[in-house]
């Protein structure tokens, strides 16, 4: 009880602070501040999954996500960001950091933030992407058969405590280089874990301290090429490595590559991620398959998506996405997954602006699982989303 209550108080205090900062006249403070927020109410309709053995391991119904953020510019060199969000894991301090800029090429970020990884995380707020849900590689657990596929490859957002050095550098007339290197607490799990325990990164009493006193590190480098006044191409690569158990015996490594092409009214995004995840194999009876001597103590989880977003009118966007996950390696004894499990999803959707800052989103998803459901013997499932998303 103490954790949720503390989180609620944290949220109330943050909102009160944001309200006070926003309501003060400019002259009362010697710095510029900006208040922003977003919210999405989504209805997920999963008709074919209802009779599946995996049901109710899918969110069939309403989900609500909301966030409020205050950004303060103390000067050209120093700024601060505070963001509180509410979602599947309750209230969460998503950002609370300071930026200190020595130059465009050298910025120090200190506090709680999502370390720079991949292209999608910049748009992780539901009001900032046109479909209701995230690509599977970044999904935290809103997929069908979620108990089996939970966490995707890199569950987004992934706020963590630490320090990041980042910067941007112009390379000639048409290119720009972005980089980031960071050390953060890293993902967590208890001793004897078979996977990351993302809840430990989200609960206030657990994210306050590192569980193994050893930071995780990572980096990203990206190049943006200017193709015209309103067209560009970004190519990026990211990596992260750390240990996640209290004894520092088990490690994870995540790598990713991404490309974003923006041509006039068309945006094409391609991204691929892979996670190598070590498991505690001291008790072979916990596994479904016989442990091999070599390469038996880890699994690989790969995820990728291709997304095309087309603005049809100023109000209407059409979106098509194909994404999937591939998991290779041993699984827990009670898992319905095989040692080489796949899921593919095909999505068609639209987003329609009904007012400035307010959109309705509709999408239909066709799911193709590698494993048949134990009860219905079905591999294919259908999902539909209807959402109202707003931002200011």
């Amino acid at each position, binding site marked *: 009880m103490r954790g949720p209550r503390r989180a609620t108080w944290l949220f109330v205090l943050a909102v009160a602070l944001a309200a006070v900062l926003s309501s003060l006249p400019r002259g009362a403070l010697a710095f510029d501040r900006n208040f922003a927020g977003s919210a999405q109410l989504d209805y997920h309709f999963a008709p074919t999954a209802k009779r599946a053995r995996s049901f109710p391991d899918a969110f069939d119904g309403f989900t609500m996500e909301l966030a409020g953020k205050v950004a303060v510019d103390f000067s050209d060199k120093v700024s601060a960001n505070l963001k509180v969000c509410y979602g599947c894991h309750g209230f969460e301090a998503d950002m609370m950091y300071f930026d200190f800029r020595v130059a465009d090429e050298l910025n120090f970020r200190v506090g709680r933030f999502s370390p720079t990884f991949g292209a999608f995380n910049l*748009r992780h707020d539901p009001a900032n992407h046109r479909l209701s849900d995230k690509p599977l590689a970044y999904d935290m657990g809103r997929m069908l058969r979620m108990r089996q596929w939970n966490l995707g490859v890199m569950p987004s957002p992934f706020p963590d405590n630490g320090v990041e050095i980042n910067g941007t550098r112009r390379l000639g007339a048409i290119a720009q280089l972005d980089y980031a290197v960071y050390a953060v607490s890293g993902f967590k799990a208890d001793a004897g874990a078979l996977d990351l325990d993302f809840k430990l990164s989200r609960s206030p009493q657990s994210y306050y301290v590192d569980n193994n006193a050893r930071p995780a590190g990572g980096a990203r480098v990206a190049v943006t090429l200017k193709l015209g*006044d309103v067209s560009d191409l*970004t190519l990026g690569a990211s990596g992260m490595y750390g240990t996640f158990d209290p004894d520092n015996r088990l490690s994870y490594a995540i790598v990713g590559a991404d490309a974003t092409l923006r041509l006039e009214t068309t945006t094409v995004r391609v991204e691929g991620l892979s996670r190598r995840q070590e498991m505690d194999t001291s008790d072979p009876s916990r596994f479904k398959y016989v442990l091999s001597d070599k390469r038996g103590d880890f699994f690989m989880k790969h995820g990728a998506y291709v997304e095309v977003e087309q603005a049809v009118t*100023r109000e209407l966007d059409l979106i098509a996405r194909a994404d999937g996950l591939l998991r290779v390696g041993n699984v827990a004894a009670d898992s319905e997954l095989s040692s080489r499990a796949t899921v593919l999803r095909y999505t068609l959707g639209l987003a329609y602006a009904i007012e400035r*800052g*307010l959109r309705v989103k509709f999408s239909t998803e066709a799911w193709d699982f590698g494993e048949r459901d134990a009860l219905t013997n079905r591999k294919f499932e259908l999902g*539909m989303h209807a959402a109202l998303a707003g931002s*200011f």
Partner: protein
Amino acid sequence: MIAGSRAARSLMVTLALFAAPAACTGARAEGLDASKLPEPVRADYEVFARKCSKCHSLARPLGAGITDDEQWAMYVARMRRQPGSGIFADDEVAILRFLRFHAAELRKKKSGTQDAGGSP
């Protein structure tokens, strides 16, 4: 069959609930209609609209209510330096030109409202 029709009914009701706001308000794009902007700022607006919609909706900057040019300068500089923003230094110049126009329009509206409110 009954369960199926009930599910279909609940889907239809849900879709109607989400579509209702659109039917009630009609469409209004998140951005501005460039054709209604003065000729000199149209190109700058296009750069603003394209660059500033990469990570968030245009409603955020357009609805921020910032009327101070200096605050916009710091705001846009902070955005440009975000890893992955894709905003070049010359984009920043164009974006700021548009936002200064937008801020001036807001100031005009505010002073107009105050004048109207202050009239006996």
